[in-house]
């Protein structure tokens, strides 16, 4: 496989693994009694291992902890490049937020009308 193709494949596999790890961490951070996280966490963990396994095959290295770390770091670096696009989109959104006028609040108007009629 050419280095360019390797870089593109690493970006795909790494970002899938890193996103899955972030999903697991977010699930842990927001755990509540209504969550049933067992199956989603098992499935996302499988995505991490499957993508690391494919990553190790493409790069001709053994499937171990170093391969897992390398795959996640490749994902982080490739997703880091997306931050330029994200910041461009964010800039457009904050331009819109800065220029817009605040609309009348229907909730306050409703609550004022209800409290006035009592």
């Amino acid at each position: 496989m050419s280095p360019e193709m390797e870089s593109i494949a690493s970006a795909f596999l790494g970002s899938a693994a890193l996103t899955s790890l972030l999903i697991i961490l977010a699930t842990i951070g927001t755990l509540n009694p209504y969550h049933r996280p067992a199956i989603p966490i098992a499935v996302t963990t499988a995505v991490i291992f499957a993508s690391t396994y494919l990553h190790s095959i493409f790069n001709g290295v053994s499937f171990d902890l170093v391969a897992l770390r390398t795959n996640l770091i490749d994902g982080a670096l490739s997703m880091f490049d997306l931050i330029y696009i994200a910041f461009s989109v964010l800039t457009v959104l904050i331009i819109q937020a800065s220029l817009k006028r605040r609309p009348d609040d229907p909730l306050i108007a409703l609550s004022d009308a209800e409290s006035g009629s009592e």
Partner: protein
Amino acid sequence: MYVSLAAVQVWGGFCLAAIGFAMHRTGPAFRRHPVGAPVAVLGLALILLHTKQPPEPELLLMETAMDAGPWLASAVLGTTLVLSGAPTYSDRKPLPLFVGWVFVFSAWYLMLAIIPKLTMVEILSWVSSILGVVLAITVFALSVRFTERRTPTEPETEPLSEKERKYIGSVLRRHLEASDES
């Protein structure tokens, strides 16, 4: 299998930062989870502050993050100030809005100085990363749907009583009016 302490520290910090951020997003906007922000800050501190240099491959990420640090910090600060000054939840505040935009422009200036050269491989890598993210989210969404379909449905809740309606009305009025005054 040997993993250096600095690498463990980077990954421990990453996990804490992600968990702390997720925790901070729980709860209503006016009362966030009290532990979320401190956990996230602790995680960031563990990632950034080291007594020993982290090994490869973590070092590459650390160097990239450090290179992007100035513009990222400027972007975060600027966006926060612009959003706090924008007339979204309260009246327009010109000073935070102006200072925020100064930071946003600085972020753009610093970012354009380090942005990588755009090549076809670079663009394909971006598309590839987006597809990887989409794949992971789709798999997660499908697994959540599968789990929810196996969960027995609960009976429909009763409508709010008059007392509950008054209470919710008072909570809304208190918080909306409080944000108006600030």
